[in-house]
């Protein structure tokens, strides 16, 4: 992805980051506002927590479809839904 910078053939990374962010929020198939896009030497890394494995896969698929030349990896997790083992007491 760093090859985009200054080559004049693609948008600078910062715009890609902004576009991914809006894509994830505004694409009806995703609608996630809590995904963070981090630029690394090796490409873009997606972080965040979603409600299902299906959504996690869909996010990576959408981003890869939209930016086929940008290496994207995902560290997105699926949020646990266990009952709590502790309570908080508030006097």
């Amino acid at each position, binding site marked *: 992805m760093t090859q985009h910078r200054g080559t004049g053939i693609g948008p600078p990374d910062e715009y890609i980051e902004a576009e991914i962010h809006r894509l994830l929020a505004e694409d009806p198939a995703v609608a996630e506002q809590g995904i963070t896009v981090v630029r690394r030497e090796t490409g873009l890394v997606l972080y965040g927590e979603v409600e299902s494995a299906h959504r996690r896969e869909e996010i990576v698929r959408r981003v890869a479809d939209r930016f086929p030349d940008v290496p994207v990896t995902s560290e997105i997790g699926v949020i646990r839904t266990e*009952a709590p083992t502790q309570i908080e007491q508030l006097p």
Partner: protein
Amino acid sequence: MVIRIAAVGDVHLDEDVVGRFRPALEELPDCADVLLLAGDLTRHGTEAEARCVAQEFGGLGVPVITVLGNHDHQCDQVPQVVKVLEDAGITVLEGTGVVLECAGGRLGVAGVKGFGGGFAGRCASDFGEPEMKAFVRTTTDSADRLAQALHSLDCDLLVALTHYAPVPDTLAGEPLEIYPFLGAYQLGQAIDSAPTALALHGHAHAGSERGVTPGGVRVRNVAHPVIKQAYSVFHVGDHLDQGEVSRLSASGT
């Protein structure tokens, strides 16, 4: 007197999530008097997604009270969403309140979605373009309705339920730049205007769990990505040890 409150927000349900929360929810009658949902029940606020919420959170054996979130407004189907939820026995609050008779006393819950605007010294002002004024007035109207709802309830324990955050404390972890989209100080002011014991909110997925209003009311961000469990349980009462966090059960499972 102890009232046991279970709460979660931002479950963002659709067909792909149905069933994930249910096993934990089935335990609620043993550990809570009520379940409060802090908005963003759905992904886009469609009637179909609301039916998923009704399926997952309906018929639980404890009363379920909710406010809507911004996601529940996305498809402009709020009346349909509210109807589906209410048909499933879920109470939807918006500038309104409800009092429940619990074993530990009368629990009053006042709820409003709330809105953004930011926090003292770093907030939007009711000034300038009509769009800006409309934004800020949405916030102040919402806070006013929350204050009215809080003051209207005759109860032993008063809880404020919002989607947007009333304090910046529980946003820690979110980028500072987006705080004005995550909550507004006017909500905190409304909470402080009444004898509120606890304020629960969601919306800030990357925020943190605990905060306090300038007036000393405890605030908890119960957004699902923050609490990372099906729901949190709060025991609110006056005889308990200060801030003690104890085991829910002796089973340790």
